[in-house]
Structures are given as C-alpha cells and as structure tokens.
C-alpha cells in the first residue's frame, strides 16, 4: 500500500519537473523546428535569423498586448497576448517577405551557394537583433496575464493527499494545444491544397517542379509566410511560458537546428518529433533524479548524490551532442530527409 503512494509520488514528481515542462518546451521547439525545416527544404539553406524572427514576432505581440491592455481590452482568463497574436503574425509575415525581397531574392536568382545565403541571414540576424533591442530594450519582460495556474501544487496535494504537488500552468496547456492545432493546420495545407502540394513538389525536385509550371516565386513567398507565422507562435508561447529576453532566442537556435536535423531536413513531421526528442533529452539530462529514485528504491538504497547527468548549465551541450550523434550516425535524420 505504501509502495503505491511512493510510486504515485514519484510519478507526480516526474510529471511536474520533467514530463510537463518537456512537453511544453518540446512543442515550442517543434514549432520553431518546423519553420526552420521548411526553409531548409524549400529554400535550401540554414536560416540563422530564425531566432531573431521569433524575437521580432514576440516583440510585436508584446507591444500590441500592452496597447490592448491600455485600452482595457483583455482576454480575461486567457493571456491577452493570444488576442494580439494574429496581428503580430501579420506584421512578422511582412518582415519575412521584406527580407526575402531585399536580401535573399538576389542570391536565389543567381543560384548562389547555400553558404552565401547563410552569411546573408547572419547579417539580417545582426540587424534584427539590434532593432528588437532598440525597440523594446534588452531587459527581461513578463507579458503574461490571465490565470497563471490551472492546478496549483498546494491544491493538488490537498486533493490527492500526496506529498508531491503537481502544478499545471495555463501556458503549458495552451502551448501544447496551440502547437497541435498549428501543426494540424499546416499538414492539412501541405497535403490537401494545391499550393501545399506544389511546395512539397518544389522541395522534392525543383527542376521538375519548374517544368511542371510551378511558380517558384509563389512557393518561396508562401514558405516565408508560413515560417513567419510558426516562428511568431513559437516565440510567443515560449515567452508566455518563461519570459521574454531578446538574447534568449539566439540561444534557442541550436536546439531548434538540432531538432530539425534529427528529424530529417525538409520533413515537417520529423521536425516535430525532433523537437520533442531534443526537449525531453535536455530536461532529463539535466534533472536531478535523487528524489525520484528515493521514492522508487528501498530506503537503504537511496542515492546520496544528486544523480544528475549533466549540470543545468550544460543544457545546450545536450542539443549539440544529439546533433553530433545524428550527423555521425544517421545524417539523413529519423525520417530520412535530404542529406543536402
């Protein structure tokens, strides 16, 4: 009887500190990774300014949220940011199209080497980074409002009588739900609409697509537009869940790239799986399992040390290790994208 309580406690502990955060973080990474993999697959280069696109989108959302709030226009239970999201997505789409037109189109018409696109995207990254920091400042911003917790740890403990509490934040639930919706929408678009199929065809075999009369300009534009939407959504969900710091999005580039590569370049499903793999690995590798094991093992075998695989500071090492492993062992990724 007592063991069942221990088991339940262990499960709750794991859910609270590993499962739920990883699910939430994984959804955010997945959204970012899908955007990156679309650009990789269709425009065929690693978009280094993706992180800053996320920052820009989130920044727009924050400004609009403040504006709404100043007018007394809120979403009550839900974060007001959700209302601001559509408008912010629109603005970010315009940004993406503007950079495509002014920076990347030149190289596309000349069929420049992919690395040139990367360098150009680094330049855009610089500029956007500076602009975001200039507009909203470099400090941390919390822009969540509405109900923070759906289930509070204390309330949970009272309800279940367990010693471990489970806290469920609204943003975590929102993240998963919105991510799922976005992904479903994307897949419907790619699998069922003419333009979506044309994009897949273009990614598959560019020359044949051109011969079939598919308009490359349109495909490129639609790709950027979708990516902008996904990036904004990912950035906002991340910012709502944790907080908004302009520099943090640059650091998210590595896990996002890792997720995209792990899942197979140009494979949106792969990017999603990759996002969760990276998130779960990061969280499990840096979690101290001491308490968890204490619940599961008999008391005389309880561990002394923290039983933590890597220090939390090495979070990024995890994504990188995964990346290296995949590149060495199976460069095409799980779903066999292009090796490029």
């Amino acid at each position, binding site marked *: 009887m007592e063991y069942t309580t221990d088991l339940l406690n262990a499960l709750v502990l794991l859910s609270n500190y590993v499962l739920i955060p990883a699910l939430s973080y994984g959804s955010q990474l997945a959204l970012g990774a899908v955007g990156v993999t679309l650009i990789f697959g269709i425009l065929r*280069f*690693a978009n*280094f300014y993706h992180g800053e696109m996320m920052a820009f989108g989130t920044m727009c959302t924050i400004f609009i949220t403040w504006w709404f709030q100043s007018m007394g226009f809120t979403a009550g239970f839900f974060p007001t940011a959700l209302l601001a999201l559509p408008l912010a997505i629109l603005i970010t789409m315009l940004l993406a199209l503007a950079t495509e037109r002014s*920076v990347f189109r*030149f190289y596309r018409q000349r069929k420049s*080497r*992919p*690395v*040139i696109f*990367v*360098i*150009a995207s*680094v*330049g*855009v*990254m*610089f*500029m*956007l*980074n*500076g*602009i975001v*920091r*200039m*507009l909203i*400042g*470099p400090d941390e911003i919390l822009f969540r409002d509405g109900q923070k917790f759906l289930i509070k740890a204390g309330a949970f403990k009272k309800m279940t009588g367990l010693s471990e509490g489970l806290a469920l934040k609204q943003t975590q639930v929102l993240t998963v739900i919105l991510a799922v919706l976005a992904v479903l929408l994307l897949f419907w678009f790619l699998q069922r609409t003419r333009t979506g199929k044309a994009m897949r065809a273009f990614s598959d075999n560019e020359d044949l697509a051109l011969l079939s009369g598919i308009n490359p300009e349109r495909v490129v534009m639609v790709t950027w537009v979708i990516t902008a939407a996904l990036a904004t959504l990912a950035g906002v969900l991340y910012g709502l869940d944790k907080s908004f710091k302009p520099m943090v999005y*640059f*650091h998210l*580039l*590595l896990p996002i*790239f*890792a997720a995209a*590569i792990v899942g197979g370049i140009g494979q949106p499903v792969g990017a999603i799986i990759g996002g969760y793999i990276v998130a779960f690995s990061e969280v499990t590798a840096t979690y101290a399992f001491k308490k968890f094991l204490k619940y599961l093992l008999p008391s005389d075998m309880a561990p002394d*040390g923290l039983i933590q695989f890597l*220090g939390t*500071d*090495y979070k*990024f*090492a995890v*994504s*990188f290790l995964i*990346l*290296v492993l995949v*590149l*060495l062992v199976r*460069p095409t990724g799980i779903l066999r994208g292009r*090796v*490029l």
Partner: protein
Amino acid sequence: MTLLLLAVGFGQSWNVMLAIFNLCLISAIMSMGLNMQWGYAGLFNAGVMASTAVGGLAAVLISYSPVGKAWDAGGTELGIAFAALVVTIVLGLLVWKRMRPGRARSLSLTAVVLVGYVFIRFFYEGASSSIEAVETAKTGFLGGLGLPVLFSWAAGGLAAAGLAWLVGRIALGLRSDYFAIATLGISEIMISVLKNEDWLTRGVKNVTGLARPVPYEVDLQQTEWFVSLVKWFHGSNLAESGAGSDALREVILLSSGVFVKLCYSALFLAVLLMILTLAMLALNSPWGRMLRAIRDNEVAAAALGKDVTNRHRQVFIIGSAVIGIAGAMLTTLDGQFTPGSYIPLRFTFLIWVMVVIGGSGNNLGSVIGAFITWFLWIEAEPAAFWLVGLVTSMLAETSPLRQHLLEVAPHMRMVLMGLILVLVLRFSPRGVLPEQAPERN
C-alpha cells in the same frame, strides 16, 4: 583608415586611439585566421569564439603560477579521472573497430561507455569539488604552469589547433550549413565548459592579474628614465602651463598608458607581420597552390586524386591556430580571463563581418577589413549617442522617448554591422580590396 585613426587620436585621446589600434591588430589576426578557412577551404566556421576562448584559456594555464594547495587537494583524483577517460575512449574504439557490426557490438559499446562514465564521474566530481574548495575567493582552481607569457601565445595557438583537429574529425565533410551549425554548437559548449568548470578556469569568478610581457603603468610612473623621457617630450607644454607637479603627474599618468599600449602594439604588430609573411609564403608554396586549385575547382581537383577533405582539415587547423594565438593575446591585453565575455555575436559574427568586408581569400584584405570593422564597431556607440543626442535635442530632457533612445543607442551598432554585412556581401562580394588573382573563366 590611418586618417580615421589619427582623427580619433587627436579628437579623443591617444590612449583611446591606441586601445582601438591594439584591438584592431588582434582582430586582424583573428580575421586572417578565419579568412584562411573561408577563402581557401570555403568553410563557414561559426565557432570562432571557441578558438578564441581556448587561446585565452591557454594564456591562463601557461602563465599563471600553479596553485599548489589545489593540486594537492584534487590533483591525483583528477589524474585518475583523466586516465579513466582515456581508457574508456580506447576501449570504446577497440570495441567499435574489432567487433563486427551488430547487436553484440552496440551493447558492448554502450556498456563500456556507461561503466566508463560512472567511473570518470565519480573521480571527477571528487576532484573538482576539492579543488574548488581551496580558497574559493582567491583561487579555487588549479592555476597554470607559471611560464613566461609569450609562450602562452604559442600555446594558445596549439590549443586552438588541437580543438580544431577534434572538431574537424566530427564536422568536416558536412555540407557548409551543417558545418556552421556544428561549429556554433561547439563554441556554445566550450563557453559552457569554461563558465562552469571552475577547477580549471575559475568560471565566472574570472582570473585576474595575469602576467604581462610589457611593463605595468604603475611601475613606469615610478621609473627614472621614463619620467625624464616624459619631461623631455612634453617639456615645452609643461613649462607653458607652469602648473607644477600636478600637471606633470597627469601627463606621466597618460603617457605611461600610451607607452604601455605602444609596447603592446609593437608586439602585436610583430606577430601580425610574422603571420602575414608566413601566410604569403605558404600561399605561394606548392601546398598553397594546390589549395587554390582545390578552391577554384573542387570537383576537378578531387577527380585528380587530391585529398580535398585532408587539405580542408589542414586549413581549418591552421586557421584556428591563428585565431587561438589572437585569443591568447587578447587575454593578455585584458590582463584577465573572463569566460562571460565570450559572446558569439561579439566574436564569431563580428569577425565574419571583417572577413566579408575584406574580401575572401585575401590576407591583406582581411587585415584592412578588421581595422575598418573594429573601428566602426567601437566608434558606433559614441557616434550613436551623438546622433541620438542631435535628433532628440528638440525633445525635453526628461522625455521618455529621449530616455529610451539614449538607452538603446548602443544597439544601433548591431544594426549597423548587420547592414554593412548585407550590403558588402551584395554589392562588393569580393570585398573592399579584391584578391589580386586573375579572373578565372
């Protein structure tokens, strides 16, 4: 370029000008290293920061005197941990190579790795905590070898080369953007390591008071011959102002700063010229010619049997070594090792702007690119302030817009740098000083 520098010298101060100049020199060396990798092997190395940091670390490890107590406390355990690491790697490799692919091999490998890990971890934890416990405020780390500083520059190069060899093993042969991501990842890891492994680097507590190859300003201010030199140099001015020892003291203060910086300049310039000459020589050697052949037509070269990946590896290692030397020099110049200051944007991507401006494959170009870029980077901040001040002079002192603009003015230089990168890449892809090679058909 020289004119601009002189302008700063006269306009702001000689000290500032020389500080900029010295950093220009260091940046120029870094830029040359990166340029070798990009211009001759087409490698987009997004991990410049790693080589720099490793170089800086070498400066610490070589020149700082060893902390005896720390060695006593954790030395042996660390040694065991290290030995265990070597054994695990060797065993792992043996298993991988000797056994046939299949279930048994994967299982054995996993077993080796797991057991090795537990073993290493146990000793490593013990060692690092004991070392860090030794006088945490002052030291708390192993210290270095206590050798003369100039050795550390060479050591910086070697360390960076070693890292590059390892990275090359993993990442070379990947397509260019994968390579960029891989190198970016490595530099992030490296910085994490430096920030956290206090037993080696003191982490974010920083290592200060590093030895230097030039005199200290404070010492200079006391020495006879220096004071007389200053008096002779500024004699007329001093006599005119006639304010006596106060003015003299101030002049001595400033001059000592200038003198020290000049010493550094001389050293750095020497290194720069040495590397430049070596690079030029190498390019004109058979090795260099082959490198250019590969760059100009990789497919043909490969068809002729030239080992392209090997050449790329060599270039990558050499380029990283050069960057490492610069990294060591930077740490020496700073007099301290601050892991927290290694920000990718400041290092990796700024150096990239330098290379792009200078034109790829052109050594002299990258030097000039470095000078221009660094100058702009440094001067952009005060210039932005000045600009903002001008623009908002119409607004009230306390207007929030004005406050905000003043606050964010420093970030304008990011936008400027990005804009320059994009514009130069687009309109002058061969850089400001294109390579003097004949146009290939």
